Structure formats: C-alpha cells, structure tokens
C-alpha cells in the first residue's frame, strides 16, 4: 500500500507573495517524507460542489519538520478557496504524485515562466552543479531572491519593467547563457520554444507539463500528452502527465 492516500495537512502559514500569488506552508509529513523536486500534490476543495483535486507542484520540502510549501496563483474558485486558508486550518491532500526531475548535468539552466517558477525552487536547492536561473514574468516579480541563494538569476518581463524585455528565451540569448542540461516549467508555448532551442543547441531538456486532471494517479487517462513513441503503458502515442510525468525529456513528447 502506498502512503500517498488522501490525508489531512495542517496550514502552518499562508502568505500573499504578489497579486493573486500565495505561498502556503503545510504540515504534511506523509508527503514531505518522500517528496522530490518536480513532484506535485492533489489539493481537495472543502466545498462539495468542486469535486476534482487541484494539482499543485511542490515548491519546497522540509523533511525535518515534515512540511511542504506550495505556491499557487488564484485563477478560479478552487485556488480562491485555498487563498483563504489560515494558520491551523486543515485541508485534504494527496501526494507526492508524479515522477519529478532527474538530477543530472554539470551546468544547468533552470527556466521558469509565471506560475511555473515555484516548482523549480526545490530543484535549485537540490541540484548539485553549476546553476543559472532564468525567470520570466508578465509584470509582478516574486521569489527572485529565493532563487539567488542557489545561482545567478536572470529575469525577463513581458513589459520590460525588469530584466530583459520579452520572454525567457530572449533573456537566455541576451545573456548568452550556456548549459548541458535544461530544467523548465511554464506555459506550453514557452516549453515549446525551449524544446526547439534545446534541440537546436543539442542540450538535454527536462520539461514539466500541465493538463486537466481527474484522478491524478494514472487511472482515468484524462491528462495525457502526445508522445513521440508508443507508450509502454497505454500502447498508443500518449503518456499520462500525472503518472509518467509531469516531467518529460523534451524529445519524448510532442508539444
């Protein structure tokens, strides 16, 4: 039997980082125990009209205290509910789910876009090599300092209010950053750009994908992405993001 059952976590702290962005520390030793960077959890809503669990990536893990940190953006009713959580409140969650990143390479480019940034923090912490961090924002900047502890941070903003004007690839090109491994999380167009960039430059890349989920454990086939080869489990050209991902090597998947 797995330990990843639906269980109660306790809210340690819930703070607002930026407009609509919240940082939630939870006491959930059953998750913290075995969690790895790049994995995610399923958060359940209290309101019975919202049935499906919300997948949220793990941002930080504190194994000693049995705590995990989640950073999320309020985009709908579920995340709105989570934004109201207060110290000592409980909430149901399940995890850790998914595969997480493979820690590898000598010189890494860690690339995050928007709400794809938080999942990379624990990775930056755990990765034992030279690290460059590229963060792309639309406007509001957050978590920049937190990443600076682990490597040099380069910023891109769509409005040019900070760092390079444009997207993360513009920043990479502008700063002429080099690497033998890319770790990336963010919106699909960004990941597609990074995939092309990585292939062009012969750099290995691990990409963390997103899709609407129901079960979160690989049973419902709701969250598939197209794979280049026939998948061992599904026997079609489909992989389950919740179970076989969310992290894939760029060449495994069609974006």
């Amino acid at each position, binding site marked *: *039997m*797995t330990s*990843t*059952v*639906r269980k109660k976590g306790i809210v340690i702290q819930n703070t607002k980082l930026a407009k609509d962005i919240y940082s939630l520390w939870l006491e959930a030793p059953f998750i913290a125990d075995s969690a790895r960077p790049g994995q995610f959890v399923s958060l*359940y809503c209290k309101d*019975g*009209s*919202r*049935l*499906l*669990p919300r997948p949220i990536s793990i941002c930080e893990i504190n194994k000693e205290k049995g705590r995990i940190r989640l950073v999320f953006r309020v985009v709908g009713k579920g995340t709105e509910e989570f934004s109201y959580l207060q110290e000592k409140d409980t909430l149901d969650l*399940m995890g850790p789910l998914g595969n997480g990143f493979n820690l590898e390479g000598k010189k890494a480019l860690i690339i995050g876009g928007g709400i794809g940034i938080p999942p990379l923090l624990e990775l930056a912490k755990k990765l034992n090599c030279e690290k460059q961090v590229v963060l792309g924002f639309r406007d509001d900047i957050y978590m920049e300092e937190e990443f600076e502890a682990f490597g040099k941070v380069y910023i891109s903003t769509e409005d040019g209010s900070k760092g390079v004007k444009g997207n993360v690839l513009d920043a990479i090109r502008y700063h002429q950053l080099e690497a033998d491994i890319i770790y990336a999380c963010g919106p699909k167009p960004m990941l597609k750009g990074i995939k092309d960039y990585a292939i062009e430059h012969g750099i290995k890349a691990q990409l963390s994908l997103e*899709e*609407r*989920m*129901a*079960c*979160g*454990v*690989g*049973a*419902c*086939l*709701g*969250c*598939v*992405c197209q794979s280049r080869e026939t998948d061992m*489990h*599904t*026997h*079609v*050209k*489909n992989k389950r993001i919740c*179970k076989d991902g969310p992290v894939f090597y760029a060449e495994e998947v069609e974006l």
Partner: protein
Amino acid sequence: MNTSVNIAGITFQNPVTTASGTFGSGMEYSDYVDLSRLGAVTTKGVASVPWPGNPTPRIAETHGGMLNAIGLQNPGVEVFIKRDIPFLRQFDTKIIVNIVGRTIEDYCEVVDRLADCDVDMLEINISCPNVKEGGIAFGQDPRLVEEITSKIKVRAKQPVIMKLSPNVADIAEMARAAQAGGADALSLINTLTGMKIDINRRTFALANKTGGLSGPAIKPIAVRMVYQVANAVDLPIIGMGGITTAEDALEFIMAGATMIAVGTANFINPTATIEVLEGIKHFMIQQGVHDIHELIGCIKEK
C-alpha cells in the same frame, strides 16, 4: 451477515465493484485499495486494437460533477489479456471486462478473443457518448440494442452485462430490448452527454466539444432509471451514477440494484470503494439486516 450476491451464476463476495474507466485496470488503485476486498473490478473499456482516444482537454469540472471525453483510449485486447488479466488474477476478486467497439463486428472480435480467458463477466458498453461511431449510437435504439445483444450472446462464453445509456427517453424500453436479446444482466447508468463553455476564450472546455457527465450531480437520474428498469425487467442490475458514500449505494440497492459501482468518486477519494463497502456493512448491522438481499429493491413497490 451475508453481503454476497449472485449474478448469472457468478458469486460476488459483496455488491461493490468499480465503474468502468474510473479505475483503470485496477493497477493504479491497487496502491490504495486491497482489490481482494472488492466484489469485482470492472476494467476500462477495451477494443480489438489500441485506440488513441480524443485530444486534450479531456476533463472539465462542473457543479457537483465532471465531464470527460477520454474517447475510449485503450491499449487493445491483446495487451489487456497479457498484462491486465494476470495482474487482476492475483487478487481474490471477480473480473468484469468492459468492451467497446465501432461496429458490431468490433465488439464480437473482443468477445471472441476473451472467450478462453480467465475473466468472469463481460460488460458491453453501448453507451459511450464520446466516440463518433459505435458507443452511444447502439444504446439509443432498442432494435440495435437487441441486435447487438443477441449477436454477442451467441458468441460469448461468459455472462453478458449490457451497459445502458441514460441519454434516452425511455430507459425501460432499452432494458426490455437487452432482455429480449438475451442479456444476463444490465448496468446503468453511463454518463449523460454534457457541454461546458469557456466564456473568456469563447471555446468549448473540452476539445471534443461534448463530454460525459458523471458524479454526484447525476445520481437522482441514475436512481430513477435503476428503479424503472428494476420494475420493467427481471434481470439483475449493476447500479451506478454518482455513488460516493454508502448512503448513495444503498439508494441504488433499495431501488433494485443487485450490485453497485463506484466511479467518479475514486478520483475524489481513492479509497472510496472500501468506504462504501464498510458503510453498507455498518448500515446492515445498525438496521439488523442479515442478508443484503433484504435490501435489494426493498422499495420496489410501495
């Protein structure tokens, strides 16, 4: 206390099974649930060859329910036979195989292929709203229901359950057609066809436009249909549609279902099947019910 039930000569240790497509082939949930405790595992619809299913998004949440348009992605019957049957046979539970196809011949091919396999029952899905051909088209016309049932019955070596679509005006008519075709049992309901629109992007929430509505939202419709079918035919019924708790399950049983299946609730709580089973037993103890048969259809007629 007896919780075992018998359908078409097969004995199930208890009336709880899984709704096809919500439990994979049992493998994923075997981490959460001791499959040996279930009356049966009903597996995801399987076709004669692998099906890739629909494009994503395949899932959308609705108030008290969800829409899915998986499109019957499945690895095909050969992989199923090699991988999933041996896996499930490790457990002390019955195996009900859900079968899909685009043509009657497709269904029959899978039925034939399973003839010599170690599975307990076949469930024929003529009610999937998410594929263009086959599926639901068969389930909305009583003549087709009878035809496909009888053609499958001729070849099937295992008892045959026909899974009915709720997207009909008269569910009892479909049940009678399946009975006329020789069905051994009926399961209902499959999902109701639904749609969600993303108003900001002015597009459909699902790539497939429509999807199948499941979950607690549809339970009252499912209970009504189980009741109507129980009063229309003499076949045992596997009831499903929004079952999340033992209380839900008991509504179906009292309405006339011999077994019940837990579907969408697995996504909300991976141990839902076991909690439903425990809850049924608890209710029986509390109410002094010695045999589950005392409850089956106990309000059939006032």
